[in-house]
């Protein structure tokens, strides 16, 4: 390495600090060819020599990147060097979401447990890779680097940000290299975010090397006379890549340095034998270095040595590629017809790189094969929660084969997950127009399921399943018939005639095997529980939950145990409800994004039982877990839950602060209810002006049925009573308390009906365990009477 003493010193300083436990980020920025990769390689060499662990991945911009491609490369590198994974952790299995070989190399074979929602999949990928990174620097400090970060796929950048935010306490140096232009907004945002969060980020500008360094570099490549060295210095302008290419050209007998890289690579290619020339062209088309297996599949026997000896290609980490991306780009720009080359590369690539293969097949003029690969790439992207990429891939698939209805059906589902209603409907219209009649019932079932889950519109779901029912024919399979009945049962359970759900499930049971697959069995149990709740038959839920086999299905376990916990809380059996919440916590330990909700339920039940210290400890764990997930909404929701636990324990100021954070942070809770709770906390700690203002803010919040407006009105009156009492207006306070008590008494008559309804509305609209949403009119009435007595 020539002329980089200053930059190396900066990197060494950062490494020493990181190795001592002060994790940090270094960004190497400079123009193409300036030597970023070489500098990084030198740093990695030194870190390795000092006993540190190193892993380098590279961003690859080939126009069809597999989501998390850069981190997949890093993870592959890390799993090869880390100590055996701890026996109790589930993260090695979760890593297999990215690629099955990752878990296997850590001694954990088999697939990770299924989760239906893409957002959960993405969070699980994030968590498992973060765990791997933490594990990789548990026994020694580590250097993890993302070379050419400006080319990295979007999902990898998001994951880099996730990990970057957590490295301050790790012995980890994260290095990113990037070109100085054009600007890369995703990368800029990532760095701005880290800086805003006080993560140490050092930017090292890599400028031109000095003339003396260029001369030294030229001399290291070839022996030139002084005049030739001067010509190299003049041509390179401090750029090491140009210096090397100019030196090679002059050493090869050219009278002057090449005017540009394109000319230089033409010269280098010109001296290669036929096989070497072909290999160079194929690698230019591939867009990234290829593995030995991929090179073998290209079917070129000779030529590799000549190409590497000529300096154009290089072997790094078992892969063969261009010495620099600029050289590859220069070769590619000179290719006249690439169709056959893309075809050959498509057949040689690792079959797991579906998006890349699809792109090459598209460019090779094989649209049908390309569409199949784009669809497979979309399915993978969907499985790791990369929905934007999934939509892109399916969009390309539909361009390749626009008359394939199944592709439009898959696309409409991804659009639904992305919340793109209009595009979802457009894709649905295309799908139904193109699908054969025999497949329409199943398509309507899929749509019904979509409305059951992502879109969350019970009425629309019911309508879709009814549509499917009408399309059933004698040829329809038992599976489809059972799916229709189960879908109808859910719609009836949550939004129609709840009592009818059981009959529909029994009909479905007649069509299913004696032991249905676990997913279906768990679905049926979940629907049964919802139907029972809706009918106010709370206590019966426990038996259904205990009979459900959800051990391998954390998301189903979450729904079954937590809904049952809520049902038992509705029935007033809080001890039994807590036991169910504990089951839920145990079943979701490996899935933090589900675990947070289970901890919330547990905390509220503990608070309800007056076990305030345990409740506080549980919400502390919930908040830690939510923070780690890097989802602001979950963190705000956890703050809300902690606020309610504090309010129940009488820690009013703390409650007000936490609920304020929750409201400002967009917690996914009933906002008017949260606003009223904060107003109550403020009133109870004597901050009456703030309480009055918060009460007014509560009245400005949107109210839907999940907010149980019938409960908001007497609650507001009760808080008005607290404020009036605090201001010494005895008569007004009594009138407010009477008004509140009157409201709660009216509710008592219909307590199970309104509670069940409110519960289900909470579940469907807020999608979280609504223990917190359960309102107990009798208890509220007691509280009002206590406040009234205190004010007398």
């Amino acid at each position, binding site marked *: 390495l020539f002329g980089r003493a200053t930059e190396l010193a900066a990197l060494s300083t950062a490494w020493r600090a990181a190795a001592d436990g002060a994790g940090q980020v270094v960004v190497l920025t400079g123009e193409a060819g300036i030597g970023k990769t070489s500098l990084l390689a030198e740093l990695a060499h030194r870190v390795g020599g000092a006993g540190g662990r190193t892993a380098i991945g590279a961003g690859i911009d080939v126009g069809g990147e597999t989501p998390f491609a850069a981190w997949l490369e890093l993870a592959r590198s890390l799993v090869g060097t880390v100590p055996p994974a701890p026996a109790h952790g589930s993260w090695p299995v979760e890593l297999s979401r990215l690629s099955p070989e990752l878990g296997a190399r850590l001694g954990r074979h088999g697939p990770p447990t299924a989760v239906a929602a893409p957002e959960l999949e993405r969070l699980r990928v994030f968590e498992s890779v973060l765990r791997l990174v933490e594990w990789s620097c548990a026994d020694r400090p580590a250097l993890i680097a993302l070379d050419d970060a400006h080319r990295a796929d979007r999902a990898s950048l998001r994951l880099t940000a996730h990990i970057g935010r957590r490295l301050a306490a790790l012995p980890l140096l994260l290095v990113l290299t990037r070109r100085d232009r054009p600007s890369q907004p995703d990368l800029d945002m990532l760095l701005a975010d880290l800086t805003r969060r006080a993560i140490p980020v050092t930017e090292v500008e890599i400028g031109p090397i000095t003339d003396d360094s260029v001369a030294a570099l030229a001399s290291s490549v070839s022996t030139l006379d002084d005049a030739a060295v001067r010509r190299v210095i003049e041509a390179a302008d401090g750029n090491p890549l140009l210096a090397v290419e100019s030196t090679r050209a002059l050493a090869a007998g050219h009278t002057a340095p090449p005017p540009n890289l394109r000319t230089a690579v033409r010269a280098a290619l010109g001296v290669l034998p036929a096989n070497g020339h072909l290999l160079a062209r194929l690698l230019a088309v591939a867009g990234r270095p290829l593995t030995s297996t991929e090179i073998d599949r290209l079917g070129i026997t000779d030529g590799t040595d000549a190409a590497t000896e000529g300096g154009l290609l290089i072997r790094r980490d078992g892969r063969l590629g261009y010495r620099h991306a600029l050289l590859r780009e220069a070769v590619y720009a000179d290719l006249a017809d690439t169709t056959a080359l893309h075809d050959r590369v498509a057949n040689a690539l690792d079959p797991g790189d579906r998006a890349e293969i699809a792109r090459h097949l598209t460019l090779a003029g094989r649209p049908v094969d390309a569409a199949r690969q784009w669809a497979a790439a979309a399915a993978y992207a969907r499985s790791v929660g990369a929905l934007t990429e999934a939509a892109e891939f399916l969009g390309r698939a539909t361009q390749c084969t626009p008359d394939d209805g199944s592709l439009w059906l898959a696309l409409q589902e991804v659009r639904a997950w992305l919340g793109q209603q209009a595009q979802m409907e457009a894709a649905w219209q295309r799908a139904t127009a193109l699908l054969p009649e025999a497949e329409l019932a199943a398509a309507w079932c899929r749509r019904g399921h979509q409305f059951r889950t992502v879109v969350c519109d019970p009425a629309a779901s019911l309508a879709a399943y009814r549509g499917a029912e009408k399309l059933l024919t004698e040829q329809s399979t038992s599976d489809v018939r059972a799916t229709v009945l189960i879908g109808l049962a859910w719609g009836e359970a949550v939004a129609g005639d709840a009592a009818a759900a059981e009959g529909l499930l029994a009909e479905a049971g007649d069509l299913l095997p004696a032991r249905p697959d676990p997913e279906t069995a768990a679905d049926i149990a979940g629907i049964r529980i919802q139907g029972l709740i809706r009918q106010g038959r709370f206590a019966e839920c426990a038996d259904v939950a205990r009979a459900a086999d959800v051990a391998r299905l954390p998301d189903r376990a979450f729904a079954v145990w937590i809904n049952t916990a809520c049902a038992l809380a509705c029935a007033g059996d809080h001890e039994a409800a807590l036991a169910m919440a504990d089951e839920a916590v145990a079943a979701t330990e490996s899935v933090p994004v589900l675990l947070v909700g289970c901890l919330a339920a547990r905390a509220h039940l503990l608070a309800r039982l007056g076990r305030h210290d345990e409740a506080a400890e549980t919400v502390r764990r919930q908040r830690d877990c939510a923070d780690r997930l890097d989802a602001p909404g979950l963190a705000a929701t956890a703050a809300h839950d902690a606020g309610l636990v504090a309010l129940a324990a009488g820690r009013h100021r703390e409650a007000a602060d936490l609920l304020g954070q929750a409201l400002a942070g967009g917690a996914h809770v009933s906002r008017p209810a949260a606003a009223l709770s904060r107003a109550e906390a403020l009133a109870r700690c004597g901050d009456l002006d703030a309480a009055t203002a918060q009460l*007014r803010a509560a*009245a400005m919040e949107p*109210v839907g049925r999940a907010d149980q407006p019938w409960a908001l009105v007497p609650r*507001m009156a009760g808080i008005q009573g607290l404020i009036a009492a605090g201001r010494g207006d005895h008569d007004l306070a009594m009138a*407010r308390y009477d008004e509140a008590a009157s409201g709660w008494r009216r509710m008592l008559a219909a307590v199970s*009906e309104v509670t069940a309804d409110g519960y289900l509305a909470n579940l469907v609209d807020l999608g979280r365990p609504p223990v917190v949403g359960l309102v107990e009119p009798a208890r509220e009435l007691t509280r009002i009477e206590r406040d009234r007595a205190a004010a007398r």
Partner: protein
Amino acid sequence: MTMPSFDLTAHTDAPLEDVWKLLHDPTRFPEWWAGVETVQAEQQGDYTMWPTGFPDFPMAQRLRTDHADGRVMISCLVSDLEFRWQLHADGDATDIEVHVDLPESEAHRLETQRTLLTESINRLAELARRPHSARR
């Protein structure tokens, strides 16, 4: 073609919260909403109103509040009438607005509705002003 509609306003010395409570408690509608005799809460948060003099003519309603400054929407699911109530705090007093949309098919009821709502908004303003009148 524009939908038949009208707007009414009223002012009350009551704080906004007291008007809000009356608007969010359908069981109290008969106390101020002219032409509403009985209200019964239903499943799913909806409720049914029986117009005065029509005990056999239940009208399903839906109540919600949207994001625009706490605007309270009450939709009649039978007749498609939509009432958009909006409250503006004026210190400890409140300005009340109501915008009523009628479908073309109900255009003939415009004047009747205007008369009923004029009476209703004034009764709402008056009722909200009397916290001691809270139902016991």
